[in-house]
């Protein structure tokens, strides 16, 4: 039998335990229930920030959209980290660019290795431009630089979202319609701005072959010293012959400016500019968009800023 004081202490302890236990049990139960609540958003994991921007414009706040690559990152040379695997593990849908933009197919590998997640390639249906590189024909993956191809990305994303969440299909289609109108207006605006550049001055020299679709759409000759990828794949990497060709092309064309890119080391293009005796016209967003809070953090903003940078550098003074 407990003596007087010990008994009181034990009884008090039992009293407080009795008070605390139900509270703890309720909290743990609520946490467990909340974790499995049907209100949790579906999650889309995208390889690049451009695709993430397209996806957000389609799904709005109905789904959570994240991009594996951050602003300024290079998809050609990117190597996934453990955090990316955790991200994909929680995904309901994965989106990639395709056409080997994701060097060594890192996005497809992530989707496969983390629960065989459904993976949609946004360039499906795009008519790719071919690049000839040292006897090899490769497909140019930078298709989004033509807004008409960006529209195709959006359509592929809409179809994927409808399959994933058919109850909200009409909302996704309505958002996509609005966004496609914006892309149409953007296309017309870019054409109008580029129209201010005389035909013989429409030479776009950049760090790597990212702008061929832009060139094809708006009538630029595109030249760059690096092959189609900044990585070590076919055609990637500078060769002396290619560098000589570019310097000669720049000198003979009288192009007024070269451009560096936010996701590529500017050193090479700056050296070529010095050799050719031309100025650096500005920095362009290429494989990645801008940081959050910058003008280039969305696709429309990126295209707008790139266009203005190019036009202001190449237009007759």
């Amino acid at each position: 039998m407990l003596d007087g004081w010990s008994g009181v202490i034990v009884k008090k302890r039992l009293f407080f335990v009795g008070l605390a236990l139900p509270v703890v049990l309720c909290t743990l139960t609520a946490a467990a229930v909340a974790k499995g609540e049907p209100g949790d958003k579906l999650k889309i994991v995208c390889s690049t920030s451009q695709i993430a921007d397209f996806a957000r414009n389609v799904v709005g706040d109905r789904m959570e959209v994240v991009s594996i690559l951050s602003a300024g990152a290079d998809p050609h040379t990117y190597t996934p980290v453990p955090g990316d695997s955790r991200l994909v593990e929680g995904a309901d849908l994965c989106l990639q660019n395709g056409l080997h933009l994701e060097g060594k197919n890192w996005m497809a590998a992530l989707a496969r290795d983390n629960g065989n997640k459904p993976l949609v390639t946004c360039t499906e249906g795009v008519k790719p431009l071919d690049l000839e590189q040292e006897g090899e024909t490769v497909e140019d993956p930078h298709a989004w630089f033509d807004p008409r191809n960006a529209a195709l990305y959006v359509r592929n994303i809409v179809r994927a979202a409808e399959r994933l969440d058919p109850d909200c299909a009409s909302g996704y289609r309505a958002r996509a319609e609005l966004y496609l109108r914006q892309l149409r207006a953007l296309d017309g605006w870019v054409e109008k701005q580029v129209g201010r550049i005389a035909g013989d001055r429409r030479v776009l020299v950049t760090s790597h072959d990212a702008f061929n679709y832009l060139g094809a759409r708006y009538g630029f000759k595109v030249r760059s010293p690096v092959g189609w990828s900044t990585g070590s794949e076919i055609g990637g990497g500078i060769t002396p012959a290619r560098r000589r060709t570019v310097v000669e092309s720049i000198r003979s064309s009288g192009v007024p400016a070269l451009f560096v890119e936010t996701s590529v080391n500017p050193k090479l293009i700056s050296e070529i500019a010095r050799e050719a005796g031309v100025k650096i016209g500005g920095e362009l967003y290429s494989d990645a968009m801008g940081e959050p809070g910058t003008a280039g953090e969305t696709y429309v903003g990126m295209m707008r800023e790139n266009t203005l940078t190019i036009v202001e550098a190449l237009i007759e003074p």
Partner: protein
Amino acid sequence: MIRFVCAAVLTSVILGSVALCQLLLLREVDVQFTHDVDDHNSEDHGGDEAQTYDVLVTLGFDAVADPFQLDGTTSGIRLLVRADGQDVISHVSDVRRGDNVVASAVSLAGPEVHFYLEATPGLEESERPCAVRLRVMRGGDAYADTTVWSEGYGAVVQREIRLTLRRQLHELDRGL
């Protein structure tokens, strides 16, 4: 005296003739008008019951495949007309400038009808404003006729229009 009488008679005849002419001119004449003008009876506008009309749309531009349409270039709708929420025209093939697209025997409950109109110009139209003419016809008469314009050069023509269906009178024959 005789002169006086003659003068009086002559004056009376003249005045009487004038009065008679005035009387004849001011008399009500039963003139048959081709159309009633002042009295809007139910035959001149839709009335409240549904009646059938032909809806004609004429484009001032080429509505062709648009790579920015949600359904793509193969199945995207080039021209869409809705009346009171119902699709009246949904054209998926190209429509050329000046072509008339007609929907016959469309049931419309007037006199006021809400139309929604959407037509997509091709990208080649980006340098000019784009217009679409919408007419509602019955028995050869126009009951509504309006033209809508794109907001900007080359932009999609897209508008909701409220039209009152009333027989349009272009000629009046009052005759005397």
